[in-house]
């Protein structure tokens, strides 16, 4: 089992060893994003909102954790479709669970690389240390990572079911989550009904909690436990949907066909 998971992870490590574009994805783009928003917040701090910097930068970095985790998972499968390797993969003695696990490991690796880079950059350019938020950062990070897995599994399921046409979803889904997760503002600015929706997302609780911690306030006692608890049904739903859609792809012949034509 471990050997097969290792094999799939190794396949992606080989890929990154040689592909500049893939490395840009996990390092270059996020860093550029950080620089733009970093300088922008510096400006905002000067003209209007002292103290906004930490708020923005912290949110920005944590958002990347979720985003990269989801992207890494969805891409690891889409990649196989692009190169016509789906059949080879699915006729090897690997189980659905192992494929899921290997992609989650990829999510962990990629989002960790991105986050470490961003934290370093934020420190160098803006003297911002995300660990100002304290050690709570670590469980919060874990929550975002796991939520990224759940959403990644959901998008991966859609790719199996709807084929390559669903590739747009890989990009689209995070943009749907971003406004609802209260990344850059407190959740209570949302209209009432949207607020309810946002409360169902583990990410909202993470961002609320982190903001409180960065502002030096006590986090709401419920933020972390809620994020943890909500992750359970989300991850279960993601895994279930993924395996259901994979089975469905086998029924309608999608698994075999997309490569051949």
């Amino acid at each position, binding site marked *: 089992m471990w050997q097969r998971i290792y094999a799939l992870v190794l*396949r992606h490590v080989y*890929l990154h060893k040689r592909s500049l574009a893939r490395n840009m994805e996990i390092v270059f783009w996020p860093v550029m994003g950080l620089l733009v928003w970093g300088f922008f917040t510096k400006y905002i701090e000067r003209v209007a909102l002292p103290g906004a910097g930490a708020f923005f930068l912290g949110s920005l970095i944590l958002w990347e954790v979720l985003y990269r985790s989801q992207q890494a998972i969805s891409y690891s499968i889409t990649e196989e479709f692009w190169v016509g390797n789906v059949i080879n993969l699915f006729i090897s*003695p690997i189980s659905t669970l192992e494929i899921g696990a290997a992609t989650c490991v990829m999510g962990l690796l990629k989002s960790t690389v991105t986050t470490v880079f961003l934290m370093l950059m934020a420190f160098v350019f803006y003297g911002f240390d995300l660990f100002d938020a304290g050690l709570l950062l670590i469980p919060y990070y874990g929550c975002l990572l796991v939520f990224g897995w759940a959403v990644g599994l959901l998008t991966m399921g859609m790719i199996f079911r709807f084929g390559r046409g669903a590739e747009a979803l890989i990009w689209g889904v995070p943009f749907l989550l971003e406004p609802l997760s209260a990344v850059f503002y407190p959740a209570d600015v949302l209209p009432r009904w949207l607020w309810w929706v946002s409360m169902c997302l583990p990410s909202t609780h993470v961002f609320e909690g982190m903001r409180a911690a960065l502002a030096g306030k006590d986090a709401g006692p419920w933020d972390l436990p809620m994020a943890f608890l909500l992750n359970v049904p989300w991850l279960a739903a993601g895994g279930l949907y993924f395996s259901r859609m994979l089975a469905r792809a086998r029924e309608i012949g999608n698994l075999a066909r997309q490569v051949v034509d």
Partner: protein
Amino acid sequence: MKFPTTVVKTRELGKTFDNIKAVYGLTFNLVQGEILGLLGPNGAGKTTTIQLLLGLTTYDAGEVSILGMDPTRQRREVLSRVNFSSAYTSMPTNLTVWENLNVFSLLYGVKNRKKKIEEVLERLKITEARHKVTGMLSSGQLTRLNLCKALLNDPEVLFLDEPTASLDPDIADVVRQTLQGLRRERGMAMLYTSHNMYEVEELCDRVIFLHHGHEVARGTPDEVKLAMNEKSLEGVFVRIARGGDVETAGNGDGRN
């Protein structure tokens, strides 16, 4: 007399997509050391049959047993003892030949990986390309890489879907020799599709012709030719493709 072991057995196998009966009522046995050709015009159901046997697509009628096991229940066990190659699949293009084979030998739990990889590269005569990036291979080299992958786990049954499409005559011959050799040395059984009737006559012990998802002729190449009163398999093929009258030919089909 000892009968050779049956490695693949189907009974009334069928699959319908939407309203298309891609395959129906297909019954055959494949025995150890046998090369069985699955022939027929485009869209006859050859690829679908192989995909059903590999569990890439689920069948909705009939029964399948591979190496005495039910491939839907004992999927991992079955898949670790068979393999598949086609000129129409590819492999991660950014990885080198060696890296790709290394990944697959890990997936198949191959012991002594380095040695095995060298051996299959040597067999298919692409050792010199082993540090090339897969995306840079010629289509003939890629086809052989696919075959190398398919040999990594010493499969007992090899499913080959047009494995020699795009090969030049010289390399196609190397591939045929390799397959013959594997059958002789290890009694590897093969289910083989091809549109090259010359190749089929050289390689296959028996053939089954499919048309519109259904069997229309079977037997040794000679039996089929005789039964349809044609001089060549090519002639049989054309008759079938154009819908001429056909009967199930021969009796060397091992039905039981």
